[in-house]
């Protein structure tokens, strides 16, 4: 085991790389579509980013973003694309865990579970401010 990488490992890594790239492409397409819709009916002066007042209401929480994107609200669609982007590395960690399970490498199943737990804590814990 000390020789580290086995050939099967590398095939799995290529698969993970494709997963990540696919996630980024899907996210970019969603953000671009929302962006085109947003810019096509927005002649107003650009928003004031000089003072911080947080993202517009309904765009800082997963549930309301999904709800807004389902109604095709342009900004919510962009934000949904960004959620897909954020979820991509999380999916990568999940798949790495499956890879370690298949190898029966329980120590690294544990390591990956800790990383996954920290990620889920960040995304799901609503009291963290």
């Amino acid at each position, binding site marked *: 085991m*000390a*020789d*580290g*990488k086995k050939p099967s*490992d590398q095939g799995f*890594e290529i698969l*993970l*790389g494709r997963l*990540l*790239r696919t*996630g*980024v492409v899907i996210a*970019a397409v969603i*953000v*671009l579509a929302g*962006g085109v819709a*947003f*810019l096509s009916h*927005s*002649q107003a*002066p*650009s*928003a004031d*980013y*000089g*003072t*911080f*007042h*947080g*993202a517009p209401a309904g*765009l*800082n*929480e*997963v549930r309301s973003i999904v709800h807004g994107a389902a109604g095709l609200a342009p900004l*919510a669609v*962009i*934000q949904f694309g*960004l959620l897909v*982007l*954020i*979820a*991509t*590395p*999380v999916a*990568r*960690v999940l798949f*790495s865990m499956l890879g370690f399970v298949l190898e029966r490498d329980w*120590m690294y199943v544990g*390591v990956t579970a800790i*990383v996954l737990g*920290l*990620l889920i*804590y*960040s*995304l*799901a*814990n*609503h009291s*963290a*401010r």
Partner: protein
Amino acid sequence: MNTLEFTLVVAAGSFVAGMLGALTGLGGGVVIVPLLTLVFGVDIRYAIGASLVSVIATSSGAAAAYLKEGYSNMRVGMFLEMATTAGALSGAFIAGYVSTSAIAIIFGVVLLYSAYTSFGGPKEPEKGLAADRVATFLRLDGTFPADRARGAAEDSTEREAYHVRNVPAGFSLMYVAGVLSGLLGIGSGAVKVLAMDQAMKIPFKVSTTTSNFMIGVTAAASAGIYLRRGYIDPALALPVMLGVLAGALVGALILPGAKVRSLRIVFGTVIAALGVQMILEGIRGKL
């Protein structure tokens, strides 16, 4: 400026940042925040949110190419991700309680350090080191494709073995890299490479590709907290994310023919100037 003009100008700036980041290996995130705050007058919290999103995009987008080459070490990456994600959560948490001036000053110092590494260039760690007990227990040692430049055939499957050293020191530095990532919305590539090259003695190609692999996961850990705090504004993240991503793709395409050495010096100078500016504005309390 109306919304369309603002979006296009920010997208153009982000494109250049992403391209230079890919060409020099420093990442685009490190200049996005100074670009948005110093040039466009954006509040640093919005800037950090938009930058973090672009960091996830470039890291994940580049991973496919890196993973195919077979340099990155999955166990080293996953083991150290425990430190970087915990650090990123701490950093994002702290960011809510630290003044924006202090964040600007810390950011300036990190920019100066990144500029320093782009001038000095990384030193290849010593080879032929003995095995380390902690690394052996954690099965961190690995192999990478033997250097094709040094006589190995193009289709050679020959691999060179290496031992990982100083695991506790590397793990601690990775926690610091995570804190900076969560606090500043950057990939902290410079600190990650410092931890893996200089502390853990991991070969350069392995450390840079593994570091890139880890950056997306680290950034995702603070993204959830940023989202709830309202740091991620869709209308601003739109041009930044798409601009940096397109710039990084073009940068990777023209990399083989680029004069990387002189680019690093130019980009390093720009980063150093931005770093000084961030510190000054932070001290004046303007950011």
